[in-house]
């Protein structure tokens, strides 16, 4: 069966690429599909068909559904290899970051919930005390994952996750790599105020 080429509708395509370009500050229209980015992307094995050039194409074509929910957006490790090698200076990591935010605002379920939880929890922990407390952060992160699995009655997944994290924890503790102390920054209110004040108007 041959697949028909995607129909291009400028009405729907335009707002999508415009939004991504503004927010990511990347000139997606400069992409000439040379695929240098794809050749160097280290998570290519995991993302399969979706390489940086394909993601850019989807956005330009206004394929919102696929652009907001694909393996590359959620598995990009922000290594900046694609952007460093791109002859047109396009940093796809800044595009995948932007898409994550757009997807969140649209209340879409992330393809990789653990990735989304990780970054949310990290930032929350970081601004709550001004410094990241690894133990607090990991506890919240694991709690969120476990609750999600609990809701779906995935008991085996919960068991596996807790076992693997406990094992890692014990190994960390044995080498005194687990920090039980608490750290904070007194001036953390400055960051919180900035965050609140501009949250409404920032992109």
């Amino acid at each position, binding site marked *: 069966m041959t697949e028909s080429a995607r129909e291009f509708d400028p009405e729907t395509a335009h707002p999508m690429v415009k939004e991504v370009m503004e927010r990511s500050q990347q000139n997606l229209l400069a992409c000439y599909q040379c695929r240098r980015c794809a050749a160097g992307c280290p998570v290519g094995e995991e993302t399969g068909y979706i390489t940086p050039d394909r993601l850019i194409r989807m956005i330009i074509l206004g394929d919102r559904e696929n652009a907001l929910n694909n393996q590359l957006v959620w598995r990009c*490790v922000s*290594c*900046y290899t694609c952007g460093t090698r791109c002859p047109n200076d396009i940093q796809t990591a800044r595009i995948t970051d932007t898409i994550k*935010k757009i997807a969140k605002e649209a209340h879409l379920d992330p393809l990789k919930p653990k990735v989304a939880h990780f970054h949310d929890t990290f930032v929350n922990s*970081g601004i709550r005390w001004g410094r*990241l407390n690894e133990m607090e952060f990991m506890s919240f992160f694991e709690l969120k994952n476990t609750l999600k699995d609990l809701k779906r009655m995935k008991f085996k997944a919960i068991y596996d996750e807790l076992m693997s994290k406990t094992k890692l924890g014990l190994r960390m503790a044995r080498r005194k790599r687990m920090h039980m102390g608490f750290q904070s920054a007194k001036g953390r209110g400055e*960051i919180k105020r900035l965050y609140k004040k501009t949250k409404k108007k920032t992109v």
Partner: protein
Amino acid sequence: MDIGYYPGCTLHASSSLYDVQSRRIFNEVGINLKEIEDWNCCGATSAGKVDDFLAVAMPARNIGIAEADGFSEIVIPCSACYSRTLVVQKRLEDDPLLKNQINTELAKKIQGTIKVSSILEVLLTTVASGELAEKVSQKLKGLKPACYYGCMQTRFPYKVPVPDDVENPQGMETVLKVLGAQSLDWNYKTDCCGASAAVNDEEAALNLMTRIMKDAVARGANCFVVTCPMCQLNMDSYQDKICQKHEIKERLPVYFITEMVGLAMGVSVEELQIDRHFVDGSELLKELNII
């Protein structure tokens, strides 16, 4: 000489050994690392995925503090903190409006003139001045390090001046040469270890680490040398797991560059806290009569 110092969260927690080593070795060459006051978390790569403004505001406050403390240079050993801070400094320089907006809430306003340095940049000045060579009392003969830079030392999501070759950096090799170790040429020196994916997307991260490990072994390396605490923890703590899965019998200690410098200066394994590694770091050193 005093120099501003931003340890970041991990150097005060799981990688506090890197903090101890950094202070110790710089002290030896007459550089006093002075921790800036009341610094905050830089937001790492997570902040940019959650909120753009926050990703700028978090490191910005630290720049303001360092400048108010009167430093003309700040050294940041953690590669992620270094990258974030360097990028934000450049973004604020390019966007005075954003800078003003952030300055309104900061007790210590940002000027933006401070030099943000990686640990390698500062080490390389001691190489250039000959001070490092003077302090070497124990040559690291027999070590065959694969210098592993990872992502954050040479690749940035924003146009900043990069102090080393982007695809084939030589900073660690240059330092190690002074210490008497001949580093190897290999393919994966700037590849990604997966960083936080080790925790949130283990499958992807383990694949990345496996490739790095396989190439280092194939080249005949007997250890890794790194600057990034995230790379260190990943390559060290997951090594057993990936090697078991892929039937790799070698185990390579993952040393911080500061451990190499410290050992060459005659500092003990205990004082450097090399005993806090997952893959034993002392055995190889004994075999080679370095300790």
